[in-house]
């Protein structure tokens, strides 16, 4: 009898409070949002959260068309996108859910252990071609990049290369795993990957953004205290109108529990 009563209450609650939320956007954030959604739904059995990828740009498009409630972006919203939303009479709110640090990795036998931003720019734009110019062995530098569709590609270009284009002979790999694989087996290789992907098969470099005065090692601690410079925020965008609907999920992500998942998926917590 008691059990039947609870079931009745649960059904009643479910009917009165069905809130299916759709999250769409960045592939980088996909594993994070999926895990957050799973445990959020475990904690609130009434809630339904679905997560799909497709790239940061598609997230904003979905927000414009109203097919998603939350857009997940691995970059800041662009001016054009904001304009498009405004033309539709929509205003969006921005939440930083986590941070993602990029590490520059080389082959484990490489003598070079630190580089400045200018040197990295030189390498990836093709001006610096040999490791000997950087104090390493006499060996050709093989830079590895992600494909143009990747948000990581854009972020690295903006942050490290100051919007210059990659050298035209750059190796472009379809996935982060492929970059790790190639860098670990190519002596002269250099590539960039999310900090969470760095493992023992490659060597992560310290980076300096002040012309070589201080070099900072890529680590979660350094990214958190703001000394490591190659860090990007990961955003959730939602319409101001639907705040009430999405707030429980957003709050959950920002809660201690939600941030624990952030750390578990290899990203850096907000707090």
């Amino acid at each position, binding site marked *: 009898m008691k059990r039947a009563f609870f079931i009745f209450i649960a059904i009643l609650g479910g009917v009165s409070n069905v809130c299916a939320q759709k999250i769409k956007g960045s592939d980088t954030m996909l594993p994070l949002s999926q895990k957050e959604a799973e445990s959020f739904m475990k904690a609130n059995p009434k809630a339904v959260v679905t997560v799909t990828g497709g790239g940061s740009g598609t997230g904003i498009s979905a927000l414009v068309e109203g097919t998603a409630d939350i857009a997940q972006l691995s970059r800041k919203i662009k001016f054009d996108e904001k304009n498009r939303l405004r033309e539709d009479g929509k205003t969006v709110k921005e939440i930083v859910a986590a941070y993602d640090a990029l590490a520059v990795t080389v082959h484990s036998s490489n003598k070079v252990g630190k580089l400045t931003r200018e040197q990295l720019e030189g390498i990836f734009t093709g001006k610096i071609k040999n490791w000997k110019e950087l104090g390493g062995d006499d060996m050709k530098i093989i830079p590895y990049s992600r494909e143009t*569709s990747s948000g990581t590609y854009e972020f690295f270009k903006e942050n490290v290369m100051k919007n210059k284009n990659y050298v035209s002979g750059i*190796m472009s790999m379809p996935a982060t795993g492929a970059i790790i694989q190639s860098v670990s087996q*190519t002596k002269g290789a250099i590539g960039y990957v999310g900090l969470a992907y760095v493992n023992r098969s490659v060597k992560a470099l310290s980076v300096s953004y002040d012309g070589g005065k201080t070099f900072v090692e890529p680590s979660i601690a350094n990214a958190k205290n703001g000394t490591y410079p190659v860090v990007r925020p990961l955003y959730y965008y939602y319409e101001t109108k639907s705040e009430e609907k999405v707030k429980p999920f957003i709050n959950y992500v920002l809660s201690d529990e939600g941030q624990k998942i952030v750390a578990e998926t290899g990203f850096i917590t907000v707090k």
Partner: protein
Amino acid sequence: MKALRRFAEHLVEGLLALSGSVTSLAILLIVIFLFKEASGLFGSPAIEKGYVLCVHSTNSTDVLNPYQIKRIFDSETANWNELGGKDMEISLFRFDDIFSLYSDEELGEDYSLLPEKLGETISQNPAILAFIPEKYAPAENPSVKILKIPEISFSDIFGGKEWFPTATPAPQFGILPLIAGTLWVSLFAILIALPLGMGVAIYLSELSNERTRKILKPTIELLAGIPSVVYGFFGLAVLVPLIQRTLNLPVGETAFAGSLILAIMALPTIITVAEDAMRNTPKAMREASLALGATHWQTIYRVVVPYAASGITAAVVLGTGRAVGETMAVLMVTGNAAVMPHSLFEPVRTIPATIAAELGEAPGGGVHYQALFVLGCVLFVITMAVSISAEIISKRNRGKQA
């Protein structure tokens, strides 16, 4: 009863004809769609849609081509005198820079003051090159000149050697390195696969005994059933480091790795089709040859192989088709660097790999999207040329026999 059967027969005939015409129509529509989407690229402005490039009105430059724009924004061209202007350093201004100069409040409600502030910024700096949205361009400001931007031309696409589809402000759509890369990898794949495949086919159809044949043939056909992504992974994890170590190359992801993987993938097709063609040689012809005193080997290369020539050509064509269109395995092992290939031991980028890697994020209807459709058309034309030439060759061979 009889009438009913007649009716049923007519119905089946009609259905068959219908399915045939539907299939042809579908293919035709796909081709039309492909070319329609691709044609949009020609005549598109060479910089991002809805944007303009502005300079100070004292600047003598009127027009910049896409390649020049890219070099300027990459800081390769740093002075206006390299473009025939005055001797002053080019100062680049991207639209987002305005937000670091002025706060959102200073730009007014709905950015109504934005054009004015942009005009101010441009008029203060005679060496400026500003990349801003057309909507906010300060067209009335007398000290601002909006540059003329040429359209993307046929020669930019088919003569260009740089592929930077997402470069801002001026994407580069030179597809020459991609075409060359595709043909380069496929050519060597066929050069590797053909002798090997022919050898195996001759062995299987003429020399092996029935038992080995029964084991070997299914094994080879099994090769065709392995998904291409598995070949790609095998290539990346095993072939690439192997090539790098044995040949002592700086990098293992090369055209050679791609050719090798493609050769392995094309082998089952070539072997199966060529072997079938050879086994179809009539027994009477073989026996006639042997009866005339020809040895076994002479029979093979003077009678069997010429008789099966059209089948062998078909095998080569099917193999080439597979090699040209193969995507995943090549994407994983060739390094995908968009450069003109000079040797077999350099990274290359092929057309299918480019489409697969980039279509996902190219905004629908944009220039990048259209450029990928142009690549699709080129691929279509290449494979069609291969099939047509095969058709002609096999026809000529048949003519000779008769």
